[in-house]
C-alpha cells in the first residue's frame, strides 16, 4: 500500500474500530446538515492526533460525493460552498495546509475521494441524498485502504473526470488520506477462501502439485447486512415459550415469578373475561344515519346494538358509536360476536364512509367508548364556553344552580325544547362544534309570557302541597319546560294523579290526599321511577305522606302553652341576669382581698369536709352494711337467696347496668358542692325554683337528697356494684375505712344512701320482684307540683313542701304525714317514703349492719384467702363462708410462724426440685442480700393497724404461694427482720456455698433471669425452657455421649411427628367419645377434599390438553408408521406425560415421604416406581445386605412372582412413598409394550402437600416376632405392616 504514514495513518487506524457502528449512524444522519459541533466530537475519537483528524474529518465530509455533485449542478458553487458551511470550510482550508505537509499527496486525496464516492454509491445512497453532507465514517470505508492497487485506475479516472469538473481549489484543499478499516467496504470481497489446495491433494503428483494453483473463492462480496446474528438461544426448542428444560435439570423458568412463565391466556368459552364483542367507531360524519352505520358494520356480522352517542346538552351526535355484535351464523359458518368484532376492527379500520375515514377499535368493556365520549363532550363544552365568551354575550345564569336568583324561569339554553327538542337545533357539521356558535344560533330564551312558560310556577310548589302525596321529578333529570307537562301527563295517564305542577325545582305529580292516593303514588313510583320520558330518565322522589317538612299549624292551646313556656324561661333568664348583676355589684362593693380569701378558703374547706365525710364515713359504712357475707346467717334464716348466686348468674348484664352510672357522677356533683348550680341545668328540670335561692350552705344538707331516686332500690345490686368499685381501686381502701368513722352514724340520722337510690338498675324483673308498695312511682313531678296546700299546712311544713318527699329526713317525713290530709298526694308520697325507710331500717337491723362494724377489708381479705385456698374463681358458696366464720382466730404470732414454716417448706421443695441445687447452699448469702433489701421492701401495709375482732384469722402479709423463690422472689417474700430471722433459723444447718462476690452473683442470676424470661422482679412463673426438655444428667448433650433415641421420644419433639401425633390423639379421643361422629368427620373431610380438588379447572384444562396431544400424536404416527409403533409411543408418552409433580420430604410416618405438589384428582397416574429389576434370589440377598448395612427402609417392590424392583440404590423417588392403612394411592402393575411396570395411581383426590401413601400389602405375619409397626396414624390403622 502506497500509503502515507504519519499522522494520517494513525488517525485512520484509531478511528476504524468504531467505523462499523458509525456507518450506520451516518446513514441516519445523511440528511442532516453536519453541525460544527459534530466535528470535535469525532475528533475526540482519535486521541493524540486530534487537530489533524478533526480536520481530516471535515475534509472528508466535504469531499464526499455530496459537494462535488452540487458543484456540478450549480456553477457558482464556489460561493455557495463558501457561504454555506462557513465554519467548516475555514477548518477545511487550514486542514489542507496541514495535511499537505504532513501527508504526501494530492493524488491520494483524490483517491480517497473517489472511494468515498464509491462507497457511498455502494451503500445505495445516491449522491443527491448525500447533499452537502456526508458523514465521516463513510469516508473511512476500510476496504479502501487495503486494495490500493485497484484504486489506481479509479483514481486516475476520477482525477481526470471529476476533479476538473469540480472545483479544483476545493479539491486541492482536501488532502486525501485513506483510512484502513477493519472491515472492507460493503460489496467488496473481504478475502478469499482456498477451496482446493493442490498441496493437500494426495492424488496429484509432486509436479502437478507445484504447477497447480489453488482454487480460491472470494467471499464478502455480498453486501453487508447489518442484521444481528440470530440469537442462538432461539435454537433451543421451546425457548420462547419457556418450556425448554434440559433433561437433568429443571428449567429456570420454574424459579421465575409468575408473569414470566405464565402461558399466554387463551380465550375459550370458559374464560371469565370474554373477548371484546363490541367495537367503537369514530371519525365518521356525525350526521351519518344510524342505518348506514348499521349497514356498514353489518357486513362483519350481525349487530346487536348500535349506540350512536349524542351530546346530552345539545342533542347533536358526537360521531362516536359503539357497535355491539352478537353471535350469528353468517353464511354457512358460525361467527361469534368476538370474531365479528375482530373482523370489523381488522377490516374496517381506516376505511371510509363517505369522505370520512373511520377508526374502529375493539372495546371490550366500553371503556374506550366512554372515554372518547367524555373527551368529545369536554371539548364541545370548552368550545361552547369559548364561543360564548367570544360573542361577548353575558352568560346566562347557570340553569342548574339550585334556586336561581334570577327569576327567569327559562330552561337551560342548551336544553332541548321538550320532546321535539332533538330536532330543533341546527345540526352542526362537526360534533366538536355542534354547539351553535353565533348569537343567532342561540335559542331565544322562552318568552316568560308564553303559555308554556306560564305553566312554570314562581312559588315553590313544595310548600303548597302540604299533606298531599306527590312525586317529585327533579329538574336535574328532566328539564323544566312547560311543554313537557302534557307529555308527562300522557306518560302517566295510567295513574290517578290529581295534578301535575311545575316549578323551578322540577315537576310535582300530586295525588289525591287519601289512602288511595298514597297507594297510587307508590304504584306510580315503583313503575315509573327511572323510566324514560323521551330521552330523559325520570328520577322520581316519592313522598306519599306529602311534604316531609310540612308542619301542621299548631292549635291555639298549644301556642299558648309554648308562649307561656317561653315567657317562663325568659323570666328565669332575666332573674339570673339580675342575680348576676347583684353579685357583681356586691363583689365590687366588698372588694376586700381578705374577704375574698376567706370565701375561697371556706369553699375549699367545705369541699374537703364533704370529700372526707364521703370517703371516710359514708363509703365504709356502705361497704360494711352491704357486705353480704355478714348477712349470711340472717339471710339464710329468711330463706333469701345468696347474692352471689344472683350476681353470678348474669354477671355481664349486671355489670353493664351497674356500670352505666347516671350522667351526674358523684364527682361532678359532689366534688364542688359550693358551686351553685345553674338554675336550670338540664338535669334538674323539675321546677325546683327554691334551689336557686338556697344558699350554698344548704348544699351540705341537701346534696345527696337533691335528686330523688327514680327507681326502687335493693341492696343486692348495690353490693355487687361496690364489689366492682373495690376491684377498681383497692389502693384507696385504707383511707376509706378509718376507725374514726365507725360509729358516728346512727341509723336514724343517717341519710339514705344516694347510691342505694340511684345506682340500682331498674329492670323489669326487679320491678316484679319488689312488692308493689315498694315501687317508686315514676311520675311527672309537674303534676304533683300542682297540688295546692292550705295556709295552715304551709305554715306548718314551710320549706318542706318545696322538697320532694324522698329528700326529706325521716323526722320531716313524719311531720309531713302528720300534718297533711290522707288524700294529699304529697302526703301519700311521704308515707310511702317513710314506709320504705322503715323497711330498709328493719332490714339493716336484720343484717346487723350496726352491730358489726367490722372492716370490710377484713372480709375481703378473707374472701381472697378463701379463694386462694379453694377455687380461683370468684364464686363463693355459702358453705365456705360458714366454715370461714367458724374458723378459729389465730394470733399474729401464730400466723407469722405459719408463714415462716410455709416458706421453709417452699424452699425445701424448691431445693429438691432443682438439680443444680445452688439455692440450697446459698441461703446465707441470700439472707444477707435480703437484709439489704428489707429496708426498702417493708411496705406500709405491714404497719397498717388491723382489727382483730371477728373470728377469722388473718395474715399481715399475704403470701404469694405461686411466687418463684429465686433471688427476686426471696427479696419480695421476706419483708422484715423477723422474717429474715426465721429464715436464718430455718437454714441454720445448711452448708454455706461459695459464690464469690454475693452481689455480683446475685446480679448475674437476675440478669440470667431477665435474659431468659424478660421479666424483672418477682415472677409467678418459673423461667425455664419451653417445650419438650429433658435435662441431661451430665449437664449437656455433648458430655452425655451418643445414645440411641427411641421413636417414642422422637415423636415428642420432632415437629412433624408432634403434628401427626396430636392429630392422631385427637382423633382417637373423638372416636372414643363418639364413634359415629368420628366416622362422620372422616367422611366429611373426605367429601370436602373431593369438592376442593375435583372442580379444579386447571386439571380439566390439563386433561383436555393431554387428550388433544395424544390424539394429535396418534394421527401423525398413524400416518407415518404402522399402528403398533404408534401405540407403544402413545403409551410411553402417557406414562411420561401424565406424571404429577411430587416432592419428597421428611415424613411423619417413616423417614422420608412423597408429597403431592399439586392437586391430584382421583384415578390419575402419579408416578412410576422405577428401579432395578432383579430376580427373587437377588432381591433376597440384597435385602440381607441392606439390612446389614443399616439401610433403614425397604425399597424392594415385588412386581411379578420372580420380578422385584429394587429402588434402593438406583431408582426414582417413588420409592419414598410410605405405607398407610388408609392410603390415598394404589400401585398398579401395567404392561407397556409387554413389559410390566409399576405405576402409582391416586385412589382419592389428593390435595397439594398431602403425603402420598399406598398400602404395601405385605403378607400378614400375625404372631411373628419381627412385625413392622405401622405409624401411618390413620383411623383404621392395623398397627402393623405385616
Amino acid at each position, binding site marked *: 500500500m502506497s500509503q502515507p504514514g504519519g499522522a494520517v495513518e494513525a488517525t485512520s487506524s484509531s478511528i476504524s474500530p468504531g467505523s462499523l457502528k458509525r456507518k450506520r449512524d451516518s446513514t441516519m444522519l445523511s440528511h442532516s446538515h453536519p453541525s460544527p459541533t459534530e466535528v470535535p466530537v469525532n475528533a475526540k475519537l482519535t486521541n493524540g492526533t486530534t487537530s489533524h483528524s478533526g480536520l481530516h474529518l471535515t475534509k472528508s465530509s466535504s469531499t464526499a460525493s455530496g459537494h462535488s455533485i452540487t458543484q456540478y449542478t450549480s456553477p457558482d458553487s464556489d460561493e455557495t460552498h463558501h457561504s454555506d458551511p462557513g465554519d467548516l470550510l475555514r477548518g477545511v482550508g487550514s486542514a489542507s495546509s496541514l495535511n499537505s505537509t504532513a501527508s504526501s499527496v494530492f493524488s491520494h486525496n483524490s483517491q480517497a475521494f473517489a472511494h468515498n464516492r464509491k462507497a457511498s454509491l455502494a451503500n445505495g445512497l445516491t449522491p443527491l441524498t448525500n447533499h452537502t453532507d456526508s458523514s465521516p465514517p463513510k469516508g473511512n470505508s476500510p476496504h479502501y485502504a487495503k486494495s490500493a492497487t485497484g484504486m489506481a485506475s479509479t483514481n486516475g479516472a476520477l482525477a481526470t473526470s471529476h476533479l476538473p469538473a469540480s472545483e479544483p481549489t476545493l479539491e486541492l484543499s482536501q488532502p486525501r488520506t485513506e483510512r484502513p478499516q477493519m472491515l472492507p467496504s460493503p460489496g467488496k470481497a473481504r478475502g478469499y477462501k482456498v477451496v482446493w489446495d493442490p498441496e493437500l491433494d494426495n492424488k496429484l503428483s509432486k509436479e502437478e502439485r507445484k504447477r497447480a494453483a489453488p482454487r480460491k473463492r472470494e467471499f464478502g462480496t455480498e453486501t453487508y447486512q447489518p442484521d444481528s446474528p440470530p440469537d442462538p438461544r432461539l435454537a433451543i426448542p421451546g425457548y420462547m415459550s419457556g418450556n425448554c428444560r434440559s433433561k437433568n435439570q429443571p428449567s429456570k423458568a420454574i424459579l421465575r415469578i409468575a408473569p414470566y412463565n405464565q402461558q399466554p391466556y387463551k380465550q375459550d368459552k370458559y374464560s371469565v373475561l370474554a373477548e371484546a364483542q363490541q367495537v367503537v367507531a369514530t371519525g365518521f360524519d356525525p350526521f351519518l344515519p344510524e342505518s348506514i352505520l348499521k349497514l356498514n358494520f353489518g357486513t362483519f356480522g350481525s349487530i346487536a346494538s348500535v349506540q350512536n352517542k349524542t351530546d346530552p346538552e345539545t342533542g347533536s351526535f358526537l360521531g362516536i358509536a359503539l357497535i355491539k355484535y352478537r353471535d350469528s351464523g353468517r353464511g354457512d359458518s358460525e361467527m361469534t360476536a368476538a370474531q365479528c368484532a375482530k373482523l370489523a376492527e381488522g377490516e374496517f379500520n381506516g376505511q371510509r364512509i363517505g369522505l370520512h375515514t373511520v377508526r374502529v377499535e375493539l372495546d371490550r368493556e366500553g371503556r374506550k367508548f366512554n372515554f372518547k365520549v367524555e373527551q368529545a363532550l369536554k371539548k364541545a363544552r370548552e368550545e361552547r364556553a369559548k364561543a360564548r365568551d367570544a360573542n361577548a354575550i353575558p352568560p346566562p345564569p347557570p340553569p342548574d344552580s339550585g334556586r336561581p336568583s334570577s327569576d327567569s324561569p327559562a330552561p337551560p339554553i342548551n336544553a332541548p325544547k321538550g320532546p321535539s327538542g332533538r330536532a330543533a337545533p341546527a345540526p352542526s357539521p362537526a360534533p366538536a362544534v355542534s354547539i351553535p356558535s353565533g348569537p343567532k344560533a342561540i335559542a331565544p330564551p322562552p318568552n316568560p309570557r308564553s303559555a308554556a312558560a306560564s305553566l312554570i310556577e314562581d312559588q315553590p310548589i313544595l310548600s303548597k302541597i302540604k299533606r298531599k302525596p306527590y312525586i317529585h321529578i327533579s329538574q336535574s333529570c328532566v328539564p323544566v319546560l312547560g311543554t313537557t307537562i302534557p307529555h308527562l301527563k300522557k306518560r302517566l295517564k295510567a295513574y290517578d294523579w290529581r295534578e301535575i305542577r311545575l316549578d323551578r325545582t322540577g315537576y310535582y305529580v300530586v295525588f289525591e290526599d287519601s289512602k288511595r292516593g298514597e297507594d297510587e303514588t307508590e304504584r306510580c313510583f315503583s313503575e315509573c321511577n327511572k323510566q324514560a320520558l323521551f330521552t330523559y330518565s325520570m328520577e322520581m322522589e316519592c313522598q306519599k305522606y306529602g311534604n316531609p317538612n310540612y308542619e301542621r299549624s299548631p292549635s291555639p292551646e298549644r301556642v299558648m302553652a309554648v308562649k307561656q313556656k317561653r315567657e317562663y324561661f325568659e323570666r328565669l333568664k332575666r332573674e339570673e341576669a339580675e342575680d348576676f348583676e347583684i353579685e357583681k355589684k356586691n363583689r365590687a362593693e366588698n372588694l376586700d382581698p381578705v374577704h375574698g380569701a376567706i370565701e375561697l378558703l371556706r369553699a375549699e374547706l367545705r369541699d374537703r369536709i364533704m370529700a372526707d365525710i364521703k370517703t371516710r364515713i359514708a363509703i365504709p359504712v356502705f361497704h360494711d352494711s352491704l357486705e353480704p357475707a355478714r348477712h349470711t346467717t340472717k339471710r339464710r334464716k329468711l330463706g333469701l337467696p345468696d347474692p352471689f348466686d344472683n350476681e353470678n348468674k348474669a354477671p355481664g348484664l349486671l355489670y353493664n347496668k351497674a356500670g352505666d352510672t347516671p350522667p351526674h357522677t358523684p364527682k361532678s356533683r359532689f366534688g364542688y358542692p359550693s358551686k351553685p348550680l345553674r338554675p336550670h341545668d338540664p338535669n334538674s328540670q323539675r321546677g325546683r325554683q327554691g334551689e336557686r335561692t338556697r344558699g350554698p350552705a344548704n348544699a351540705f344538707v341537701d346534696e345527696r337528697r337533691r335528686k330523688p331516686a327514680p327507681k326502687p332500690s335493693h341492696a343486692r345490686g348495690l353490693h355487687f356494684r361496690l364489689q366492682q368499685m373495690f376491684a377498681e381501686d383497692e389502693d384507696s381502701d385504707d383511707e376509706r375505712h378509718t376507725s374514726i368513722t365507725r360509729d358516728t352514724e346512727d341509723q336514724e340520722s343517717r341519710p339514705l344512701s344516694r347510691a342505694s337510690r340511684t345506682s340500682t338498675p331498674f329492670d323489669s324483673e326487679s320491678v316484679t320482684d319488689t312488692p308493689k308498695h315498694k315501687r317508686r312511682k315514676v311520675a311527672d313531678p309537674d303534676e304533683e307540683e300542682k297540688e295546692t296546700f292550705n295556709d295552715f299546712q304551709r305554715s306548718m311544713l314551710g320549706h318542706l313542701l318545696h322538697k320532694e318527699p324522698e329528700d326529706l329526713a325521716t323526722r320531716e317525713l313524719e311531720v309531713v304525714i302528720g300534718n297533711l290530709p290522707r288524700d294529699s298526694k304529697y302526703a301519700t308520697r311521704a308515707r310511702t317514703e317513710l314506709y320504705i325507710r322503715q323497711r330498709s331500717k328493719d332490714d339493716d337491723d336484720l343484717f346487723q349492719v350496726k352491730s358489726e362494724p367490722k372492716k370490710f377489708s377484713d372480709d375481703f381479705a378473707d374472701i381472697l384467702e378463701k379463694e386462694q385456698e379453694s377455687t380461683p374463681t370468684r364464686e363463693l358458696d355459702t358453705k365456705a363462708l360458714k366454715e370461714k366464720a367458724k374458723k378459729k382466730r389465730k394470733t399474729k404470732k401464730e400466723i407469722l410462724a405459719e408463714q415462716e414454716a410455709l416458706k421453709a417448706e417452699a424452699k425445701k421443695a424448691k431445693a429438691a426440685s432443682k438439680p443444680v441445687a445452688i439455692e440450697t447452699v446459698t441461703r446465707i448469702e441470700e439472707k444477707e442480700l435480703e437484709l439489704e433489701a428489707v429496708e426498702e421492701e417493708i411496705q406500709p401495709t405491714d404497719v397498717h393497724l388491723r382489727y382483730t375482732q371477728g373470728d377469722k384469722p388473718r395474715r399481715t402479709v399475704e403470701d404469694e404461694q405461686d411466687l418463684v423463690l429465686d433471688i427476686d422472689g426471696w427479696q419480695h417474700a421476706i419483708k422484715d427482720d423477723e422474717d429474715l430471722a426465721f429464715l436464718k433459723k430455718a437454714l441454720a444447718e445448711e452448708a454455706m456455698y461459695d459464690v464469690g462476690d454475693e452481689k455480683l452473683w446475685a446480679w*448475674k442470676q437476675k*440478669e*440470667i433471669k431477665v435474659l431468659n424470661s424478660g421479666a424483672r422482679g418477682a415472677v409467678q412463673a418459673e*423461667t425455664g425452657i419451653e417445650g419438650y426438655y429433658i435435662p441431661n444428667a451430665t*449437664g*449437656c448433650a*455433648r458430655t452425655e455421649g451418643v445414645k440411641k433415641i427411641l421413636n417414642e421420644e422422637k415423636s415428642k*419433639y420432632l415437629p412433624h411427628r408432634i403434628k401427626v401425633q396430636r392429630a392422631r390423639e385427637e382423633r382417637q379421643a373423638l372416636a372414643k367419645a363418639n364413634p359415629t361422629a368420628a366416622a362422620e368427620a372422616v367422611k366429611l373431610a373426605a367429601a370436602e377434599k373431593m369438592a376442593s380438588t375435583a372442580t379444579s379447572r386447571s386439571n380439566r384444562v390439563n386433561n383436555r390438553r393431554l387428550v388433544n396431544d395424544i390424539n394429535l400424536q396418534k394421527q401423525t404416527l398413524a400416518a407415518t408408521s404402522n399402528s403398533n409403533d404408534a401405540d407403544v409411543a402413545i403409551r410411553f408418552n402417557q406414562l411420561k406425560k401424565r406424571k404429577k409433580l411430587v416432592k419428597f420430604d*421428611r415424613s411423619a410416618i417413616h423417614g422420608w415421604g412423597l408429597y403431592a405438589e399439586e392437586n391430584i384428582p382421583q384415578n390419575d397416574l402419579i408416578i412410576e416406581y422405577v428401579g432395578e429389576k432383579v430376580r427373587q434370589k437377588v432381591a433376597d440377598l440384597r435385602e440381607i445386605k441392606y439390612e446389614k448395612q443399616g439401610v433403614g427402609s425397604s425399597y424392594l417392590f415385588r412386581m411379578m412372582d420372580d420380578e422385584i424392583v429394587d429402588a434402593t440404590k438406583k431408582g426414582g423417588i417413588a420409592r419414598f412413598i410410605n405405607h398407610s392403612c388408609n392410603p390415598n394411592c394404589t400401585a398398579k402393575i401395567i404392561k407397556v409394550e409387554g413389559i410390566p411396570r409399576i405405576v402409582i395411581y391416586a385412589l382419592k383426590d389428593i390435595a397439594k402437600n398431602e403425603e402420598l401413601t399406598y398400602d404395601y400389602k405385605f403378607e400378614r405375619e400375625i404372631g411373628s416376632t419381627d412385625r413392622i409397626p405401622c405409624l401411618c396414624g390413620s383411623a383404621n390403622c392395623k398397627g402393623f405392616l405385616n
Partner: protein
Amino acid sequence: MSNQTSPDPPSRGSPKLKRSPSRDSDERRYDGPRDSKLQYAYDEEELPSDAEQAYISPDQEQDGLSPKRRKVERPQRLNYTPYMTLRGHKRGVAAVKFSPDGKWIASCSADATIKIWDAKTGGLAQTLEGHLAGISTIAWSPDSKVLASGSDDKLIRLWDISTGKCMPTPLVGHHNYVYSLAFSPKGNMLVSGSYDEAVFLWDVRTARLMRSLPAHSDPVRSVDFVRDGTLTASCSSDGLIRIWDTGTGQCLKTLVHEDNAAVTSVKFSPNGKFVLAATLDNAVRLWNYVEGRCAKTYQGHKNEKFSINACFGTYTAHPILIEDEAAGDSEAQQGQQKWAFVACGSEDGSTVLWDVSSKEILQTLPSHEGVVLGVDVGLEDQTIVTCGVDRTIKIWKRQPVTANGHDRPPPGQNGSATE
C-alpha cells in the same frame, strides 16, 4: 503406633518432595487477612486432588514455590507438652475453640457457662452466663468479636466478647438441644445442627432463621462451613454426611460409609476439598466429597460413645518457640515448611495426632482423665488446646524432639511420652 492399620504403607519421605514442579512465587500471592483462620485456604486450584494436599497454607506455598526451597525432612514425631491447665468450669467442658485471631480460647461447659481465656497467659477474661442448660457447642465469628453458643435449652445465643453480654435476641427455633454450630466465613450466617434432626441456617444480623434443611433422621452431630461459605456439611448419628449448597439448601452429596457408623464430627479441610469425619467406630476418615470416596482413615484412638471433634493442624520441622514468635515470628515461620496433621480426642483421655497423608500417629497426648471432648489447634503457634469431661482445659505447646527420637520430657511433667 502399633495399631495403625492404614491400607497403604505410609510414605516415609516427605510428601513435599513429591510435589509438582515449582511455580513462580509471585504467581498467586495471597494478600488476605493474616490473622484469619481462612487465609490459608485461598490457594491451589490445580493441586492434585490427593489427601496430602489437604492442608497447605499460603505461607507454605510461598516458600515452597521459591527455587531455593530447602529440602526438609518431615519430623516423624511431635513433642507437645502441657503448657497450661485451665480450671474453672464446674462440670465437663464440652468444647474449646481458639478465636480466629488467636488471642482467646473459648470453652463451653455443661455448667451452662462459657469462659473466655487469654490464650497467651491463660487468664480468665470473661464468664458468659445466660443459658439455662449445659452448652454443647460454641463457634467464633471470623472477626473474633462474637461468640455463638448452642445449648440444651434449645437456644443459640450470640455473645459480645468485649462486654461479655449476650445479644438481646437469641436464635430460637430448634426443637431440641442445639448440638453443633459453625459460622460462615463472612460471619453473616450461622449453621446449627440440633437433636431435632434439622440443620438450620441463620441470618446472624437479624437473628432469623433463613433456611431449615431437613437433613437427617437422627440428631445432627456436627455442622461445618466450607472456606468460602458456599457449602455446608452436616453429619448425624444416622451415619450420613451430607454436603449442602448453602444458597439453595439442596443436598449436593451424601457420604455414607458401609458400616453406617454414627458420624459425630465433620470438618472441611482448609482447602475445602476434603471432609474430615469422626465416626463412632474408632476411626476418623478423610473424605473426598467430590468423588464421594474415603481417602484416608485414621485410627488408633478410642471413640465409640462420645462425639469428639476432630480438627486439622499444621506442623513444621521445628517447633516455633515463643521467643521466636516474640521476635518476628513471621520470618521464622515463613522459612519453614509445613505439613498437616489431624487431631482428635479419645475416650481413654488422650489426644491423638496423625499426619494427614501418611496416617502415622505423630503423637499421643495424655491429656485428660476421662473423655477428651474437644480439640483445637491454634494456627499461629501450633498450640493445641484440649478439653474433657474432667472439667479442665489444657494447652499444649510443641517442644523440640530430643535427639534420641524420644520426646524430651516436658518441664512440668513426668516425662511419660508415649509412642
